């Protein structure tokens, strides 16, 4: 533990929020404990993602609790959802029995949908014992559109917002003429494909979508037939939501075939892609992300250092956890209560200084507006690319930053709010 006090003070001052500072704070007198149940996939194929989420939140909460004069202590209780919707339900009823009022976590869409639905049913059936869901990772746009719910807050820009940043970047690049879309055949892949088509057509009608492919998730061992199609279509740019081995094998197959195109990805910084690609990805793998490791503020530098010390095999590739923790703290302060209803109301429309600039929680759909970055995979040189990731000598160079307002998209949420 080595957070420098002077930095801490600056940061916690920021975190308290503009609005919070002017209100009387009845909680300041004594320390309040806030229990949060965190459900992550800690076993099975996606365990590395769950483990990263769990440890990032752990370090974030540790830092939050250690701030001088902190009167709110976050108590994170970790559960293994095993990536199973049924398991998540079983854990949820346990959480409800234990009287825990806050839930966070991520995982597959099935788990998150089941949690959102379970919470909305629980809150209907148990007035006065409401539970609030703080979503830091699941980026299906539906959760703050068609499926939006008063008891769900998302702190991470969703698929369409990320695509907005990505297409803005593409639109500015006049060398882009022919785009190919290749994605995994499931909801997320479909969303990437459809939003890419729609948003590119709006911004650059001259860019041609020369092909689109959906492939079975996690089952393709040899991407060369796809690459042959991409080559035949004459694409210069590929947009893909692939992750893990589906991304690695895709880019490797492209290299084998001598296909010289740029890959715009969602997960090029995680799940083994940097490790398995190494120099094969340099200059061609691009990324849209909410995390810029080259522009960490002092607080994030301390968090990053602590994280890497404690968990050297994991990677801090996501920023939403920290904005989530800060906004929760600010909302408790503002409302003077740890009751989910009061905290939820306080968070609606709240703006705080996030880790990469101001972030705002839109009241209408409970979607956080946060900065996004487009980056290119490059060798770590200590300057433009501050550090290598996943133990490699490669990291991401920031090409463009989009402030919260830039990726603000309309929503279709019709939210029923408690009276």
């Amino acid at each position, binding site marked *: 533990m080595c957070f420098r006090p002077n930095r801490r003070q600056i940061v916690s001052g920021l975190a308290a929020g503009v609005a919070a500072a002017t209100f009387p704070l009845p909680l300041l007198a004594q320390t309040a404990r806030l229990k949060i149940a965190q459900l992550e996939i800690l076993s099975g194929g996606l365990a*590395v993602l769950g483990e990263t989420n769990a440890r990032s939140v752990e370090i974030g909460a540790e830092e939050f609790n250690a701030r001088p004069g902190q009167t709110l202590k976050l108590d994170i209780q970790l559960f293994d959802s095993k990536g199973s919707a049924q398991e998540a339900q079983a854990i949820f009823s346990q959480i409800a029995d234990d009287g825990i009022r806050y839930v966070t976590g991520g995982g597959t869409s099935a788990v998150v949908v089941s949690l959102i639905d379970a919470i909305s049913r629980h809150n209907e059936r148990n007035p006065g014992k409401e539970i609030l869901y703080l979503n830091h990772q699941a980026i299906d746009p539906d959760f703050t559109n068609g499926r939006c719910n008063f008891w769900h807050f998302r702190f991470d820009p969703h698929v369409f917002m990320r695509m907005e940043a990505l297409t803005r970047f593409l639109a500015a690049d006049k060398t882009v003429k022919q785009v190919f879309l290749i994605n995994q055949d499931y909801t997320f892949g479909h969303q990437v494909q459809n939003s890419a088509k729609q948003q590119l057509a709006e911004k650059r009608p001259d860019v041609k979508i020369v092909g689109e492919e959906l492939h079975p998730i996690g089952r393709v061992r040899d991407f060369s037939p796809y690459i042959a199609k991409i080559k035949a279509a004459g694409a210069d740019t590929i947009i893909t939501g692939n992750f893990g081995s589906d991304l690695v*094998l895709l880019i490797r197959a492209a290299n084998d075939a001598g296909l010289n195109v740029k890959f715009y990805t969602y997960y090029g910084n995680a799940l083994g892609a940097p490790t398995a690609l190494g120099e094969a990805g340099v200059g061609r793998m691009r990324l849209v992300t909410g995390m810029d490791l080259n522009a960490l503020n002092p607080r994030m530098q301390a968090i990053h250092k602590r994280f890497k010390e404690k968990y050297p095999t994991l990677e801090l590739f996501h920023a939403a956890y920290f904005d989530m923790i800060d906004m929760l703290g600010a909302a408790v302060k503002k409302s003077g209560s740890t009751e989910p209803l009061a905290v939820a109301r306080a968070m609606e429309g709240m703006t705080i200084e996030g880790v990469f600039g101001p972030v705002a929680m839109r009241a209408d759909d409970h979607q956080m507006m946060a900065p996004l970055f487009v980056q290119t995979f490059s060798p770590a040189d200590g300057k433009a690319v501050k550090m290598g990731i996943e133990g490699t000598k490669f990291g991401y160079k920031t090409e463009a930053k989009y402030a919260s307002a830039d990726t603000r998209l309309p929503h279709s949420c019709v939210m029923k709010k408690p009276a």
Partner: protein
Amino acid sequence: MDLAFVTLLNALSYGLLLFMLAAGLTLVFSLMGIMNFAHASLYMLGAYMAYSVSSQVGFWGGLVVAPVIVAGIGMVIERYILRHLHARGHIPELLFTFGLVLLIEESVKLVWGLGAVDYRVPVELRGTLFELFGARFPMHKGFVIVVALLSLSAIWWLVVRTRTGLVVRAALANPGMVESLGHDVGRVFTLVFGLGVGLAGLAGAVGGAVLVTEPAMAAHLGTIIFVVVVVGGLGSIKGALIASVLIGTLETFLIALDVRLSDVLAPLTGLASGLDAVLALKASQVAPIMPYLLMVAMLIFRPRGLFGEREI
């Protein structure tokens, strides 16, 4: 045409990788009746072992040492566990190897971590083998083909041409007789199991480098190799070879094709309005279920497989 040719070579490379796995499995199954559920897990173990060894002595060293280690592990398992289960029949053996799948996957995560490891083909194999009509065929795929063919000939030689192979085949037909002739049947079985598992290890050492070495790699190939063995037919290395290449080709070509079922059935329109969801699927989307469809059909209509000597 050129595209089809390169696609065929790609399919061959993938199919032969499958074959290396399936050959070991079918060898063990046909000789010992053990359906080794953990075969793909041992393939994964081979990849991780090769990764660890190669970080010390280089890729080629890993390629040699890893299969030997995996074969050793397999022989220990056969000698000290499977042999005792044998008396209780094949189902407990299957159950045991099923449990082994869980144990190996968790152990791999414990030892090597949850994420992928940096195990790749060496620089020598990263280039292009040849270029045909503008389509490149990468060296490492040629390498897979060569290793697979070499191991195929080695097995063939071992089983058909050597004295040990003779004893193995005899032991299969009549273990009691071979025993009374003074051969140690138990040792033969241990050797065969070690050989089969070692092949999986070799496939892992090669496949791990060409594909991705991660804890999920066993699950990715786990069930497909059973399909290969069943479709190829029991006890037939030739069947395993044909089935591997067949399934590799099937998957690869279905991806390369750009048709929908509705296009194929266009002349029959009006026949199936309720099946719109089925007909709208692209061939490439159907590709992953084709092997299983083939396997189920095979088990129902031709239980002995393509080249099986007997029904399973």
